[in-house]
């Protein structure tokens, strides 16, 4: 009886309202960017509404993507395949080459040239260099950088106090040896305490490689550049942090541990600050990464707003990209503490606004310093970065877990990835 009833109910429910949507006269532009948390989604939504309200004839539709692990790029790619991707979207800097080579994003060079009030030099030159690169030497502009970021070492002041150590970066230059000594002293403090932690992706171990004077690629980015003694030196140092038990085991997420308070130092980008502000119950601050044998090093992380090659409204899409990267919107996004305006390179107002975030309680200057000598996260035009990253990652796992020596790594790594680089043209 009840079963039958349920079927009736459901069938009836099927003829519930089917309302036609009201027709729209305005152009609708869909755009998307990858936020890291709800607060960012809210800010982007507000920014979208604000631009929308001030823009006649165009309706904006903001779609938050997921976080990195929730498959932002995967969904994007699937949608591009099916022709349902938004008009304007953000992609990480490393993906620009892949999208551009496949013809998925629009070359904005003509639109930018025709636009008097757009100045490409307002952004960090490391970024613009990548965005105007084309393998055949033609004039291109693939997008405009949404923001910039760099690594810092977040450190737990309470643990540094408990070990009686000076805070990192205070006073004289802070070297790898100092860094290791601090990690040792903090690790010894308690059974569950670790001196150091970083997450298992390329930029983390890449910092050590860069700071020792080596590099992922050769000069013109057409081949692997890791087969040298500097790599061995970098990885020997990094490996010892792990094999000596000073670090949260490689591959484990170090962020929860640091937020909980039992990791002394944690490498992360600007995006890590809001979570710390919200959830860390201990005293902490940020410092520049320690200086390696080849001096100070850092990454310049970035992503760009690009235009879907199949958009029906290229002119409006370009306008939207410009509006989204205006000093005003960048400032609003940066006020959350997860980003650094990409205009901070040249715009003093942007710099001052950035330094004032968190009421100056956090050492914001550490990031700006890092950006100045940061190596840009760069698209790889002459190879398949995702495959190379995978092979690099697999081998690094072995090194940092102590299964392979840095020497073995340096000797063999370039052979292993050579197949993923295209022959130079």
């Amino acid at each position, binding site marked *: 009886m009840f079963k039958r009833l349920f079927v009736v109910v459901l069938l009836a429910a099927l003829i519930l309202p089917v309302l036609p949507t009201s027709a729209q006269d305005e152009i609708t532009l869909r755009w998307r960017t990858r936020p890291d*948390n709800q607060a960012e989604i809210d800010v982007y939504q507000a920014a979208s509404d604000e631009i929308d309200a001030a823009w006649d004839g165009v309706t904006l539709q903001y779609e938050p993507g997921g976080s990195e*692990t929730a498959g932002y790029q995967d969904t994007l790619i699937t949608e591009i*395949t099916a022709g349902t991707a938004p008009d304007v979207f953000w992609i990480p800097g490393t993906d620009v080459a892949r999208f551009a080579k496949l013809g998925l994003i629009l070359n904005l060079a003509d639109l930018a040239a025709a636009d008097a009030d757009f100045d490409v030099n307002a952004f960090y030159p490391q970024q613009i260099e990548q965005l105007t690169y084309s393998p055949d030497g033609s004039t291109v502009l693939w997008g405009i950088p949404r923001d910039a970021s760099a690594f810092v070492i977040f450190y737990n002041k309470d643990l540094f106090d408990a070990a009686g150590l000076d805070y990192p970066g205070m006073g004289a230059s802070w070297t790898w040896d100092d860094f290791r000594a601090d990690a040792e002293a903090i690790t010894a403090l308690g059974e569950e305490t670790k001196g150091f932690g970083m997450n298992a992706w390329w930029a983390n171990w890449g910092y050590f490689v860069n700071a020792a004077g080596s590099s992922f690629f050769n000069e013109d980015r057409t081949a692997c550049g890791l087969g040298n003694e500097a790599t061995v030196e970098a990885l020997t140092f990094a490996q010892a942090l792990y094999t000596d038990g000073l670090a949260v085991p490689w591959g484990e997420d170090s962020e929860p541990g640091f937020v*909980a308070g039992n990791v002394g130092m944690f490498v992360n980008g600007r995006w890590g600050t809001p979570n710390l502000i919200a959830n860390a119950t201990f005293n902490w601050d940020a410092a520049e990464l320690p200086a390696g044998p080849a001096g100070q090093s850092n990454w310049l992380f970035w992503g760009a707003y690009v235009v879907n090659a199949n958009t029906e409204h290229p002119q409006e899409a370009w306008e939207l990209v410009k509006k989204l990267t205006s000093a005003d919107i960048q400032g609003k996004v940066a006020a959350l503490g997860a980003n650094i305006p990409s205009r901070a390179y040249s715009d003093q107002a942007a710099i001052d606004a950035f330094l004032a975030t968190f009421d100056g309680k956090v050492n914001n200057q550490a990031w700006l310093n890092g950006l100045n000598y940061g190596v840009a996260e760069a698209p790889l035009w002459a190879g398949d970065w995702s495959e190379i990253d995978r092979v690099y990652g697999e081998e690094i796992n072995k090194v940092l877990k102590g299964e392979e020596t840095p020497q073995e790594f340096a000797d063999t790594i370039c052979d292993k990835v050579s197949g993923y680089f295209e022959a130079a043209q």
Partner: protein
Amino acid sequence: MTSNRRLIQLWTLRGIIYVVLVACALLMLFPFIYMLFTSLKTSDDVYNVPPRLLPNKPLSAMYNGAEVPLYRATINGQEIDVVSTEEKVTGGRFTTMDQVDVDKPTGSASLLDLPLENNPNLKDTGRVETRTNSKGEAKEFPIYEVTYNGQTRDLVLAFTPKLNKFVDPKDPENVERQTYALLSEFAAPPEENPLNRAEKVEFQWKNYEAIFSLRNLDRSLLNTSFVTIGVVLGQIVTSIFGGYAFSRIPFKGRNTLFIAYLGSIMIPFAVLIVPMYRLMVVLGWQNRLVSLIVPWIFTAYGTFMMRQFFMTIPKEIEEAALLDGCSRFRILWRIFVPLSTPAIATQVIFTFLYAWNSFLWPFIIINLGNKQDYVLTLSLIELGNVYRTEPNLVMTGAAVTILPPMIIFILAQKYFIEGIATSGLKG
């Protein structure tokens, strides 16, 4: 006599069976128990070492106009709840020489922590203990005359941490109610006068409120239910018809068709993702709930199961009915369906689980921004990534995802499992 012995034997056997069953049950349930308790914790509490089940909430007090954590200290033999001040002093970790870790002084087990300067209980003897570490370097440790608990001893200074000043928030100026200690909970506490977080057991029910308001989970819940009901009903209908035809109607080409049909089970779903996505685009169904329902009501799996079950129903019943002039549909509806309630119930569970738990397809077909059409698995994976530093909230989300099917299952298990168990496959 014999019956007595048999009874004892029986109950011993039953006792053993029960012990095994209970142990297994606990193993099976533990992850859920963990999930439930963790979903009621504060995020700090999740990271407590060693892990514990019951949610503890740290106590706090108002001090200088802000809410700050409370610590429990023993000062002059008296337990006092204190709070930390901003004030820091250079302190010393004092201990006996055998407790000193020469290689890593900060790892030395401490007897007590004291402020170094202006401390009447401390007297520098001027003597030092010298030890060689593993690198062959000589390390010196100064010896102090320390007065504590009414006695005076010679102790070595292992190293000099910075100590925070802790005061009683109700009586901050009272020197008798002040102490100096390490602020970090993760540095090993000294043996004497350790400072502990003041805590009490408290369930954070507000996590559940938070989760619904935060992640639009109530809508996901409704969508998931809607999709699941649709898929279950559709699958039952198609598989009863299909199962009957495959098991009972011997027409030409049936077996070939059946093999092809069975083969479709073996097609990995991933083969279909790209073409299916395109089909959905052509139909205008992408990013719509219908894409989660209609394509999935045709199931080889369910048809196969129903067929297997119908095969066990004696042919005689049907042949008699056919001779009596019953139509196929009548036979199916009047004889096969009532006889196979257990099989249908089982199929309902399978389909229910399949639809409720499906992840890859919604993940591909529903845009990440389209929260209106999210299902629970999508919300949860997003939750797990966005809130990964707050496992308590992730567990709350997991509970919201997992509990409804569990409750429905517990309520209806009579129909599900009992159905199979009692009238089961006897035919």
